């Protein structure tokens, strides 16, 4: 599904990712953890193709095709979904209007007919229910005036509708209280399937109590310095990042 090989990436000329390698197969759930400034958000932004995030060397393949050749929207249409760390407000554009445009674009790329209005609305309502989001949010401006937790749930709601092949969740758990975290986790778990891969980028081990990953990677200074199973997360919780980054320093 996703093949990252010795990826180096820079933001405004400053190298942030310094040789990152990661392989994600269909159906797998990977968690990428790391302290502040380790390059977690850069990785998500590079994968989604944000302007200003430049791949300086190495390569990223999505279903065998190099991502570097694809525009942001082409990646989205190919099935990459990024749940934003800070979802953006777009006043004046309703959530529903936004969803419709997005779904139409993604479905068209897959050769599917656009959903009729009734089906679309029914599905959107179902997705809202799934993440405990009042249907009124469909009428409001995209993320406009939403609380932090509502914005995050709105991201998951969109993910459920768009049914991506690869879901990147960029610190979707930060700023959420436990109840909201459970709701988000329920949504993500519902999407787990043998065809779909999920990459959780997170700062807190807490998320992994609710979404149990197949693999855990520790990112520090732009590289994955340790990989393991879900027990690695527990170890991290007990010992902190210093255990690993210190290890790195002494090596």
């Amino acid at each position, binding site marked *: 599904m996703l093949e990252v090989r010795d990826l180096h990436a820079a933001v405004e000329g400053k190298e942030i990712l310094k040789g990152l390698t990661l392989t994600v197969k269909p159906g797998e759930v990977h968690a990428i953890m790391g302290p502040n400034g380790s390059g977690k958000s850069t990785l998500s932004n590079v994968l989604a*193709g*944000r302007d200003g995030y430049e791949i300086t060397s190495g390569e990223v393949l999505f279903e065998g095709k190099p991502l570097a050749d694809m525009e942001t929207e082409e990646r*989205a249409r190919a099935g990459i979904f990024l749940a934003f760390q800070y979802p953006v*407000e*777009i006043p*004046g554009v309703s959530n529903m*209007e936004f969803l419709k445009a997005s779904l139409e674009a993604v479905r068209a790329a897959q050769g599917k007919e656009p959903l009729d209005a009734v089906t679309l609305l029914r599905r959107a309502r179902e997705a809202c229910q799934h993440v405990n989001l009042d249907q009124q949010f469909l009428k409001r401006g995209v993320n406009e005036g939403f609380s932090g937790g509502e914005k995050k749930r709105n991201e998951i709601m*969109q993910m459920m509708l768009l049914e991506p092949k690869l879901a990147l969740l960029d610190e979707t758990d930060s700023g959420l209280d436990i109840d909201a975290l459970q709701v988000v986790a329920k949504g993500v778990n519902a999407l787990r399937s043998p065809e779909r891969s999920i990459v959780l980028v997170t700062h807190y081990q807490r998320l992994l109590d609710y979404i149990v990953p197949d693999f855990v990677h520790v990112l520090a200074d732009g590289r994955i310095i340790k990989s393991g199973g879900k027990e690695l997360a527990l170890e991290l919780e007990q010992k902190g990042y210093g255990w690993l980054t210190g290890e790195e320093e002494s090596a």
Partner: protein
Amino acid sequence: MSTEAEIDKLVRREYAAGFTTSVESETLPPGLDESVIRHISSRKGEPEWLLEWRLAAYQKWLKMTPPQWAHIHHPPIDFNEVSYFSAPKSMADRPQSLDEVDPELLRTYEKLGIPLHEQAALAGVAVDAVFDSVSIGTTFRGKLKEAGVIFCSISEAVHEYPELIKEYLGSVVPQGDNFYAALNSAVFSDGSFVYIPKGVKCPMELSTYFRINEAKTGQFERTLIVADEGSQVSYLEGCTAPMRDENQLHAAVVELVARKDAKIKYSTVQNWYPGDEEGRGGIYNFVTKRGVAHENAHISWTQVETGSAITWKYPSVILRGDNSVGEFYSVALTRGRQQADTGTKMIHMGKNTKSTIISKGISAGRSENTYRGLVRISPRAEGARNFTQCDSLLIGDQCGAHTFPYIESRNPSATLEHEATTSKVSDDQLFLCRQRGIDTEKAVSMIVNGFCKEVFRELPMEFAVEAGKLLEVSLEGSVG
């Protein structure tokens, strides 16, 4: 492609109405003096009083100078370089019905999406088409007549309804009101006249399409709408012009009279040729629009301004009668080198008068977009209320957005509120949209349409769609 490059592409979209029509025209040589005015008047077979009225306006105009206060810059206009009258030759003997109109002219309007054959026309919309200086035909006249509604060119009205014209012409915008209104009063060639009798609700939308075709020709149309007591009308004007390298002058006057309990809704979709990217050519649009609202009357201006090299217009309402209502809803989009200085005046004279101003300015490219508005509460306007919201959206860092509201209150029981904001289409917003598979173009148009929503919903249904599309087309290539 980078977002910037895409936006750039978007902004460079071509002007779709830029074709010219080859019809043989009779055009007066450039220049303005009394003989030109006499020629226009005699050519139209006008009565003596109207000629005198024009000449008086001309005398006033000679003593005036072009206003300097607007936030626009252009080389001085040589008023002797402009031709003040042009008419298709085939119109010399006025056609009696649309069937007799030169098919080339009808095709022009069809190209613009305005079929003039009634069977093909938009159902429920009567159209008066003005080509250069003359009206070439008005649809659905019979049906309107049944309701008692008069809808014809102002030239015809001068002959057929002289009493109405005499009573109302210049009653809202006097001859010497301002430089461009005075010029219009002296040389106006044609335009539309509407009269809705007492208690009648006009059975269909009325609309006028203005088209400038001839080179070096000014267009000076005059529109007069009188809604008698308790009547209602909705009127829409649209404007286009061919792409030409030189600037063309358009100085129109629109007068609205809403008598007691009457309601007038006046909508404009203005898409005159804006000039090319470097600012060559385009229409200079200097327009005076004003309405008088008598007791309980309601006047609403809605405008979508995307064209013209220069726009200078302030559709206004004089709230003369108690409880009268004035509204102004505006979207003004500028790109390339366009300059717009537009807004409104709400003059509260009656008690409990109410006005609402919603203005949305969108600036892209290297354009300048200015809102200029006046809200004046006179001492006897007890309980008057105004709410003003003017928002600006900037696209790119080469353009300017300006807000100059004048707020004057002389009555303590009046309540005035004015709010203004400026924002931009941010990279973050575009990235979110693109990450969801929505391309930049679509994303920008969604954001812009969202920004303008409050104004679009004031437009008659058929035209709201048109306005949205027009904006999309105009914005192609504007995002940065």
